[in-house]
């Protein structure tokens, strides 16, 4: 059940769900809970099979937010769906590298690249 203020802009492009974060800073605990709920609903409630998460606006991302992304990844795999991340700023990408999460996620430079061959 997704609750709270909408923290993702959802768009369908050629059969792929593109979810764009609306917050520059994904740090606040309540915010992260809401983001998690809305992300999980894409798989658990809507049954979407091809999802691209667009980070172009995101400037900060805490480890709690990373945790939500990992749980999302697990849900996507369990549902035999596909997930790609894109448009991640270099500083944020460094966070993925430090935590080695760049090995888990399929990360593309741009949204176009992420949509390509989904």
């Amino acid at each position, binding site marked *: 059940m997704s609750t709270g203020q909408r923290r993702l802009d959802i768009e369908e492009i050629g059969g792929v769900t593109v979810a764009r974060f609306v917050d520059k800073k994904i*740090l*606040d*605990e*309540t915010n992260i809970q809401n983001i998690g709920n809305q992300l999980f609903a894409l798989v658990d409630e809507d049954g979407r099979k091809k999802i691209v998460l667009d980070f172009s606006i995101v*400037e*900060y*991302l*805490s*480890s*709690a937010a*990373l*945790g*939500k992304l*990992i*749980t999302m*990844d*697990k849900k996507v795999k369990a549902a035999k769906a596909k997930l790609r991340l894109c448009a991640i700023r270099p*500083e944020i990408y460094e*966070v993925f590298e*430090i*935590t*080695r*999460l760049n*090995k*888990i996620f399929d990360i593309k430079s741009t949204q176009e690249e992420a949509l390509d061959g989904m």
Partner: protein
Amino acid sequence: MAVHEQFEVSIPSTAEAGQALLERIAGKIETLESFSPHDAFGIRLALDEAIVNAIKHGNGFSPDKTVRVKCLIEDQLLRVEIEDQGPGFCLEDVPDPTEEENLERPCGRGIMLMRSFMSNIEYSPTGNRVLLEKRPGVRMQ
């Protein structure tokens, strides 16, 4: 050495109070020329992790517990000490999140990010107090 800001404060164990404190410190750092945008990015990230750890994992959002914070901001040094009233923890008990078997665990990355972006991190033996230091351009790992 010019002191830009120095304070000691106790905040309630709420996410809002934590974010306000984070803004007070990280916002100030962002106005200083001596810290690069990359330094400021790492400081905001590391402080958020430390403050959230104290409020959430340390004090468990308890209205009866506070987080004590000491902060010093100079041109070439940021020093922040954060102490919660929780039971503390043992650093060795936190699994390495980059190990293959832990990669998919959704938690345990905060301390790693703090270590990576700050110049120095020290936990008290009881584990409920952490000292974070940042010197421009200097990273611990």
